């Protein structure tokens, strides 16, 4: 009896301590709520040095940063227009910025609050997607490259630095491809010698044919999983963004990459503030912080992308700034790269249609998957037949049982005989 009581007391004490611990975890939240402003930053995945967020919060007491990530311009855009979430700063790419400007989603920036804007190089200002540079401040820029694992891919196949490597049957099943239509079609259009911003539907059709032809050779359509699959040598060839390619080749030195001479995409990711933002001044403070040359250098070092902050170049490791794959010559950029433009709505519909068709076609043809689908169909049919048989048999036996109930006299014999 006494023993039981002591256990009870112990339990109660444990309960009190536990609830105290749980409650105390709310205390900082409550205190913070009173004076602090929280700005919501929505950026690409693996695209910032997380320590900088802490540094910003330390330098600006009273401002908290709530940092979330997305993995494609399109998913970011659909989240914004759904109105489901409240963001202050977003980091879209070029074509998406012009689309968002057209749709009146972005706020005009007050550059008096962003004095560090002066460090941004002149070539990165007033770009086509934001001609008067009213809405955006460049974050990073880069190009789309093709990675290959030099352990498995022979030098002969890469010496012409062409996108055709992605269509090389020798490496069937070891090729990865972009799982987003804009980048995938961009590559196919360039392969055919067309513009990535083509507004001719028949050119898009041809590009779709190219992608269909490539499909049996493709191991998987992936985005962020490219990191894992290339580093572990699950796949040998993949197109991806230059900064990430650099990170991957740091992890696995066998992986090399080149900018395809058929033409490549040059992209700018810029910081913008949404019109719906309630803390515009604080958000501008954050943008200003990110434009600080030293901060920008640290950030660039971490993510591997090229910075638009010319002052920051002085703080960067020369090995990085002299890497022609990350900072190509401006002549090369002019001749071999193209910046995405916002596609007109009818072309967007064509793109969407073609991409969906490409993706659903896999289920019906293609060598390996077809044989895989074969046994699945057999399994389905066999188990369906079994189920139907079972139902029929049960029906018959149920009816027999009912008959037995009706004639209890001879039914008894019947039951014994059955058993």
């Amino acid at each position, binding site marked *: 009896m006494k023993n039981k009581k002591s256990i009870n007391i112990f339990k109660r004490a444990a309960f009190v301590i536990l609830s105290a611990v749980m409650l105390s975890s709310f205390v900082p939240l409550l205190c913070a709520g009173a004076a602090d402003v929280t700005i919501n930053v929505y950026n690409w995945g693996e695209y910032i040095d997380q320590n900088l967020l802490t540094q910003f919060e330390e330098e600006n007491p009273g401002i908290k940063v709530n940092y979330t990530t997305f993995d494609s311009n399109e998913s970011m855009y659909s989240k914004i227009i759904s109105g489901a979430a409240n963001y202050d700063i977003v980091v879209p790419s070029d074509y998406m910025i012009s689309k968002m400007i057209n749709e009146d989603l972005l706020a005009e920036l007050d550059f008096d609050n962003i004095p560090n804007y002066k460090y941004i190089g002149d070539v990165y200002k007033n770009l086509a997607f934001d001609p008067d540079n009213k809405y955006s401040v460049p974050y990073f820029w880069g190009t789309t490259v093709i990675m290959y694992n030099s352990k498995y891919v022979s030098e002969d196949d890469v010496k012409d630095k062409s996108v055709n490597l992605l269509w090389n049957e020798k490496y069937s099943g070891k090729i990865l491809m972009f799982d987003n239509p804009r980048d995938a079609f961009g590559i196919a259009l360039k392969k055919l010698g067309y513009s990535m911003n083509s507004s001719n539907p028949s050119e898009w059709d041809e590009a779709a044919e190219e992608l269909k032809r490539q499909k049996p050779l493709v*191991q*998987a359509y992936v985005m962020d999983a490219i990191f894992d699959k290339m580093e572990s040598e699950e796949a040998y060839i993949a197109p991806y963004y230059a900064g990430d390619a650099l990170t991957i080749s740091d992890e696995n030195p066998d992986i090399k990459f080149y900018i395809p001479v058929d033409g490549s995409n040059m992209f700018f990711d810029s910081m913008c503030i949404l019109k719906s933002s309630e803390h515009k001044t604080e958000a501008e403070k954050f943008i200003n912080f990110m434009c600080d040359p030293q901060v920008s250098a640290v950030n660039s070092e971490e993510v591997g992308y090229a910075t638009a902050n010319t002052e920051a170049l002085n703080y960067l490791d020369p090995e990085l700034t002299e890497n022609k794959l990350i900072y190509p010559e401006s002549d090369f950029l002019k001749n071999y790269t193209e910046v995405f433009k916002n596609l007109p*709505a009818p072309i967007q519909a064509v793109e969407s249609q073609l991409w969906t068709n490409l*993706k659903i076609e*896999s289920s019906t043809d293609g060598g390996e998957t077809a044989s895989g689908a074969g046994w*699945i169909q057999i399994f*389905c049919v066999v*188990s369906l037949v079994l189920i139907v048989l079972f139902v029929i048999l*049960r029906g018959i036996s149920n009816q027999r049982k009912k008959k037995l109930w009706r004639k209890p006299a001879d039914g008894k014999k019947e039951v014994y005989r059955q058993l």
Partner: protein
Amino acid sequence: MNDSVKMRKAMTAPYTVWMAVFVVVPIALVVYFSFTNVGGKFTLDNIKAIGEFRGTYLISIELAFVATVICLILAYPIAYSISRMKDERRQQTMIMLIMLPMWMNFLIRTYAWMTLIEDTGLINTFIKWFLHLFGYEFEGFSMINTQGAIILGMVYNFLPYMVLPIYTVLTKIDESVIEAGRDLGASGRKIFTMIILPQSAPGIISGITMVFVPAVSTFIISKLLGGGMTYLIGDIIENYFLGNAGEVNYNVGAALSLVLMILILISMGIMNRFDKETGEEAGGII
């Protein structure tokens, strides 16, 4: 109206509000979007557009069906043997072990399978190493990015949903009924088909729905384990809502999910009939 009725009504109020806000309104929105165009005018075009996804619906249903059957084959014997254990504490431990993987995040578990079944993954590496010891060279199985891998992911993730309801009904079967059957001279097979199976039918039915419904509408398993090579209907719906294929179109996306809902409802209706035929006590779904 007396107090206890009033009390009962008051207690259901929070749930009624919950259902209205989070179930009825979303379904109404899905129906609204399915029958309107971008401008909000009535149209049947979205429903017509679904025709081209016939193949995708078929594949989704096929894979979910196979996964459900495999789950049933795996889950029934397990649930049966656990429910027949004499020691109650051991039963609880076993059930906890089945629940254990669900304590981890669904995505992490699926990612883990990726590293297991890749060409250079753990399973293949081990087999290659093992055969190498005996002097054989082996290419390795290609498992990932196939439809088989998607089925594997479905079975692995949804198996507990099949075990639990079956286990619950099996524990409720009165042991004395089985003993009575045995006393009357029924064989083991007879006892199973005439006593245990009919009485566990409600559990099987709810297990099947709890596996089939999430499996048929999944999109992340096909993306991670199928490598984006096989599109399921869930992937297409996701694309239309997120605009991953280029354009955001809530209307077609809503129409697609409406048709999926109807298909699921029809199959549940068929299951319900099946339930009434087999089990004497018709159990509700889920």
